[in-house]
């Protein structure tokens, strides 16, 4: 996790940033160790499973109930060993992992080396249809369990590169050198799984069992998920409250109103409409911090109309028709920053953030935008249909603004129309089912703080979150090369070379970097957001 600098409150209006980082300060008065924190949430797209959850809402739950080999410091995003006692390599190709002693799942069974290798083999195996399978693509034998042809049968059940060498030790052999491989291990796709997961899968899905500070008590779709603190949890980040109730909201404005009324303790994702009031309403109970989130608009490359050099020109034109400065200032009250590359400022300059990569493509130039779109043969189908879910993130507001901006550049009303989808889960399903006909929102919350995560998981051919289906052999080659680089600095330089191809192809239009925002009630204290913009639930204390 070298090069990851914490950017503290450098952006936006100063008044908004009161309470940046950990707010609420030290606990005064009595705390109730059994108090339950009520927090805003939205239904996950699919049932919770480490290998099959690649969106934010399901990720919140996995963050509560699972722990991996490493974890990311909630303040600095630094990757530190968690379940792993040591992760060693000599050649960045063979990695030897030793687990700490006495680790247990919340059902009492021990966490062993096999808990990891079984889980990873399960996720990678094509027959299990897990979206996070590509996270294991560099492990030797991946091609045997996950052939490139999606309909093919696997030639093996397990990856030859995973070898258990003892109850607490195992070895991972990669297909190539990969200097920063261990930095990704804190992502939830690498979490261990108990025997129950394999023996009674249906039961596990009904009530997931992990090794985190919380246990799932109940889940009612559309209502809430209740989690209770696991008293047997021995990790360093033991829950300081009795449990978390994740309450489903389909409108963040309702969540905000509930927060003010005292019916909700933590609301992350403060809606844009309330941002001008949040500082006055909440005072130091309003938290804003930079997060590893970039909002982009992606394109459906499975649609012929969006492929080819002429379409690339149109995409560049659309990007230049968007007035990012005005939208971030007026709609988001300065809590988002116009994007200048495809990564995030939280990576820092050493980590690969570079404001010069996007260049002209990310600037606002309506005249040139119009010329590019016309040269590229006009908008495919005559108009843009911009799609996103509208139950989170104030997406409706910025979509309207983007469409107005495009209309203005083209000098034609209704050249861009919005297609609002009611819920996050429904939207994600439409995206993964490849139902998009025009540009669609592709927000990216980093899985781990590394430039590699912002590029290869989104734009590498057939990557886990390559929703648009972008494919460029040159880009893939540069990514592989960067992964094989001997040092972290060389890797970052390699990834930046790959990123420059994105500036030419524009497979996704960078919109803005998103700060995490949250508000909390007077009933709770010690509420902070981690660099992923997720509340650090286990640290929250409930007052008596």
């Amino acid at each position, binding site marked *: 996790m070298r090069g990851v600098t914490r950017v503290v409150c450098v952006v936006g209006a100063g008044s908004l940033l009161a309470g940046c980082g950990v707010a609420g300060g030290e606990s005064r008065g009595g705390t109730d160790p059994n108090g339950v924190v009520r927090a805003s949430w939205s239904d996950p797209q699919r049932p919770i499973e480490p290998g099959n959850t690649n969106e934010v809402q399901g990720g919140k739950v996995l963050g509560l109930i699972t722990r991996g080999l490493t974890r990311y410091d909630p303040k600095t995003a630094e990757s530190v060993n968690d379940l792993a006692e040591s992760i060693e390599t000599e050649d960045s190709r063979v990695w030897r992992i030793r687990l700490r002693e006495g680790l247990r799942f919340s059902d009492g069974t021990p966490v062993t080396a096999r808990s990891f290798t079984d889980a990873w083999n399960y996720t990678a195996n094509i027959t299990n249809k897990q979206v996070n399978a590509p996270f294991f693509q560099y492990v030797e034998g991946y091609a045997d369990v996950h052939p490139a042809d999606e309909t093919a049968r696997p030639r093996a059940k397990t990856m030859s590169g995973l070898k258990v060498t003892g109850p607490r030790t195992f070895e991972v052999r990669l297909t190539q050198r990969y200097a920063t491989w261990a930095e990704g291990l804190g992502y939830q796709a690498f979490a261990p799984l108990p025997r129950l997961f394999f023996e009674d899968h249906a039961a596990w899905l009904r009530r997931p069992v992990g090794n985190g500070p919380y246990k799932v008590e109940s889940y009612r779709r559309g209502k809430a998920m209740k989690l209770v603190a696991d008293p047997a949890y021995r990790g360093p980040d033991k829950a300081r409250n009795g449990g978390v109730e994740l309450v489903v909201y389909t409108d963040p404005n309702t969540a905000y109103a509930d927060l003010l009324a005292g019916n909700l303790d933590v609301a992350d994702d403060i809606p844009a*409409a*309330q941002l*001008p009031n949040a500082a006055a309403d909440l005072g130091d109970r309003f938290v804003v911090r930079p997060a590893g989130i970039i909002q982009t608009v992606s394109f459906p490359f499975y649609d012929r109309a969006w492929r080819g050099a002429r379409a690339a020109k149109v995409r560049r034109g659309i990007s230049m028709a968007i007035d990012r400065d005005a939208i971030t200032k*007026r*709609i988001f009250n300065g809590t988002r920053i116009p994007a200048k590359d495809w990564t995030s400022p939280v990576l820092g300059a050493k980590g690969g953030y570079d404001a010069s990569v996007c260049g002209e493509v990310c600037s606002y130039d309506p005249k040139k935008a119009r010329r590019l779109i016309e040269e590229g043969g006009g908008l495919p189908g005559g108009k843009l249909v911009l799609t996103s879910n509208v139950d989170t993130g104030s997406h409706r507001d910025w979509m309207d603004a983007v469409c*107005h901006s495009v209309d203005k550049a083209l000098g034609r*009303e209704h050249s861009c129309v*919005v297609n609002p989808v009611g819920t996050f889960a429904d939207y994600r399903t439409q995206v993964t089912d490849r139902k998009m006909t025009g540009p669609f929102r592709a927000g990216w919350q980093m899985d781990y703080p590394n430039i590699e995560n912002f590029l290869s998981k989104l734009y590498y051919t057939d990557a886990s979150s390559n929703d648009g289906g972008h494919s460029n052999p040159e880009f893939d080659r540069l990514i592989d090369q960067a992964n094989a680089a001997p040092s972290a600095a060389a890797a970052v330089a390699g990834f930046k070379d790959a990123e420059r191809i994105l500036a030419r192809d524009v497979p996704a239009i960078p919109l803005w970097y998103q700060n995490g925002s949250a508000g909390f009630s007077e009933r709770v204290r010690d509420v902070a957001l981690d660099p992923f913009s997720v509340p650090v639930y286990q640290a929250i204390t409930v007052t008596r």
Partner: protein
Amino acid sequence: MPDVLQKNPENTAAAPAAAAPEKARSLWGDAVATLLRSPVFLISGLLILLLLTVAFWPGLFTSMSPYDCDLAHSRQGSAPGHPFGFDVQGCDVYARTLYGAKASVEVGVFVTAGVFLLGGLLGMLAGFFGGWWDSLLSRITDIFFGIPIVLGGLVILSVIKANTVWPVIGFMIAFGWPPIARVARGSVITVKQQDFVQAAKALGAGNGRIMLRHIVPNAVAPVIVVSTIALGTYISLEATLSFLGVGLQPPTVSWGQDISTAAAQYRNAPHMLLWPAGALSLTVLSFIMLGEAVRGALDPKQR
């Protein structure tokens, strides 16, 4: 005013023996005379006239486009040339309020016409033929009557997405006709038993002739009254569906949608909410007042 009516040839011909000072008039003549003396009718009539002008020629009142939005003006209050201020996107609220009238009026008028024809026809058939026709049609009416219309809208309209007003109009006609059918049926049954209908039957008139010449003209008044009063509620139903996101879709400008966007902003920019909401209330009120006035005029008991 009575002078004008006395010149009506139908009146003079129909009542040659009437007393000199107060000539007898038809139901409709009476109704018009009453209406023209009613302040409620005159006020609501003027408002509706204004509304129709705005709906069909919004360009007469503003040169702004409802789609010409500049984020630089986001949420600002009224400014010269922009009396109602701006919304979040920096669009002119005055222009949007004016253009929003069109969709509302279109939906109101077409739905009223639709339910009047559909409900009137089914109600008349049920009332006129009686027997199993009546049983069948009345049960169908009951079934549709039992469906909560907003719930039906959420289910059906969320599936049909089109950028025109027609799916909404079609849905509202399909689910809005039962009350009209009931009124029409009752009215037809009353008229059917009257002497002149029996006389026509005795003279050998066919069903079609009896219905068109004798029943319809005498049974239509209550149906008109109920439909007119309902027009206002159709407009508010359209706004409700649009507010919930299943009614009119952008880029069609509608008050319901604008109210929905403004609802989240009312603390920072209350003008965004007040203007379209005020326009909606005034429109619904005008049509309900008009309906009441027409009812008063057509119902002899109310005089």
